[in-house]
């Protein structure tokens, strides 16, 4: 004998599924398409690139865009389009590797600090203050200066500096979630701290962090390219957008396409991540 004489038909029965909601957001879908395509280029560059990006042809130096070379050729006769395409591998990799470790460390530290508070929180607060006082780029460059240039060191540098931003965000969300009675209920049920933090609080607290991650990936590409431009990240002759821009900078007036095209690639990819981030905020929110 159940007390459901009137089943309150809640909105969810007539509400669209998350997938349907996603399809209705043009911005989000554009972002998905951009990043989807970018990922394809990153994983299968040789399939899409018409030429070998490292093939040097002194006879075809600094040619303007044409049918044979849609993005022209650079100072060594290499096809610019192929180089931009091959750079996708490095730059997309950058988006992931420069962020995912900072994300993981930040989420764990933020969750622990947000849950336990106390002395750990005070120390964390001071560490955060110390790190965010400095401009992000300056700190990263400082760390790279210590470690030496190169992609791996660049990832380490960005992670070492960037994790605090994730941690701060996570900590705030966890503290907010702890105001909910389900967290207290978990404690009263005798659940272990680990279970409460990772099984209950984390999934509910992580949405803003994921959204921030998307934006951070766009920023990572910008940052990585900047470092590549400065010669502190990827090293020439590796095809990387920042390196490509740097290579083309002496020819801005004569072969302007060499620096412009990689720049456009950065903008479009960054835009793609941002659009996804915007749409995700709505989609990931728990219903009701």
């Amino acid at each position: 004998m159940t007390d459901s004489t009137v089943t309150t038909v809640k909105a969810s029965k007539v509400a669209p599924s998350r997938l349907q909601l996603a399809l209705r957001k043009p911005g989000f879908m554009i972002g998905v398409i951009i990043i989807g395509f970018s990922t394809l280029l990153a994983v299968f560059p040789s399939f899409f690139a018409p030429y070998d990006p490292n093939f040097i042809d002194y006879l075809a130096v600094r040619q303007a865009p044409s049918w044979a070379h849609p993005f022209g050729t650079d100072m060594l006769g290499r096809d610019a389009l192929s180089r931009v395409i091959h750079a996708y591998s490095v730059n997309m990799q950058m988006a992931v590797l420069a962020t995912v470790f900072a994300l993981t460390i930040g989420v764990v530290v933020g969750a622990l600090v947000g849950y336990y508070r106390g002395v750990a929180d005070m120390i964390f607060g001071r560490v955060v203050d110390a790190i965010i006082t400095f401009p992000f780029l300056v700190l990263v460059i400082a760390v790279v200066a210590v470690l030496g240039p190169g992609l791996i060191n660049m990832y380490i540098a960005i992670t070492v500096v960037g994790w605090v931003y994730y941690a701060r965000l996570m900590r705030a969300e966890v503290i907010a979630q702890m105001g909910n009675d389900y967290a207290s209920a978990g404690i009263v049920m005798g659940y272990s701290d680990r279970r409460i933090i990772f099984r209950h609080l984390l999934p509910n607290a992580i949405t803003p962090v994921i959204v921030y991650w998307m934006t951070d990936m766009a920023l990572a590409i910008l940052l990585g390219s900047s470092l590549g431009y400065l010669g502190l990240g990827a090293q020439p002759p590796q095809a990387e957008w920042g390196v490509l821009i740097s290579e083309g900078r002496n020819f801005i007036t004569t072969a302007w396409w060499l620096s412009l095209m990689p720049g456009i690639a950065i903008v479009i990819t960054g835009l793609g991540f941002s659009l996804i981030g915007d749409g995700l905020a709505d989609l990931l929110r728990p219903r009701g």
Partner: protein
Amino acid sequence: MTDHPILEVENLCTTFSRGDTALPAVRDVSFSLGKGQVQGLVGESGSGKSVTLRSILGLARQYGEVRGSVRWQGQELTTMSERQLRKIRGREIAMIFQEPMTSLNPLLTVGTQLTETLKAHTDLGRKARRDRAIEMLDHVGIPAAASRLGEYPHQFSGGMRQRVMIAIALAASPKLLLADEPTTALDATIQAQILDLILKLADEMSMGVVLVTHDLGVVAQTCDTVSVMYAGRVVEQGDVRQVLQTPRHPYTEGLMRSVPQDVPPRTQLYSVPGTPPSLFSLPEGCAFAPRCQAAGPACQTARPMLQDIAPGRQTACFHPLPATQDDAA
């Protein structure tokens, strides 16, 4: 119901749209209010009582469509422009809300909020406004009123804040007070004080009051007449004594019986089975039929309209409960 009503609501309907669906929050609500009369609107969540109040003042217009008629002292409010309505709000009709912390501006002092209202709705000069502000605070029972003009809402306790809100609402001496659950968030001892205050002021200022609440006790103690609402409609209406002591609608009766009163302790309480319907899925026919023990076949398909069953007594039911001898007048 009254000879010279100051407020006449007739077939008020407010509909909100959520995407393609239309949510009928208020349907065909009609009542009239005389000078100095206290009318209660009582119901549970989803009954439409708060939306009714807001629709009267035109506050619901930005979210939904309001149809029907609301006549205030002969003027039709539903067709008025925002500009015209603004002249009436605060000066002739005032409203107070449930949560004083969110309806008072936390960044302005209490004195500023009071004088602001006076500036908008009266012609008083600055000194006169200040004096009136102190007078109002005093009138609502705030001790040392003059010294508290410069304080901020957070420096007052819940009950005091509610008094401040009443002071602001009544500063321009309106003729109608709309009160949306004014004491729900307050403790019992404070609640009694605030309700007494509202009644006292209503009496002094010959003000009509429409009081929205879910608490039948509050209705019993403060209202002259009451409208019981369910799923957006009025299901029963009349003199408070009659409605509460001899309810004619099964829902009213169910509500009264659910209250643990004169029941042997620790026994099963009477409860109306089921839950109030969601606005997204209102049943056809009478909205209460799925939970009603007196429901018949007509109830599933047709909606009962509000009808007189005795002078001054109305109910919307195909099978109203029988009248008793006391229910004569």
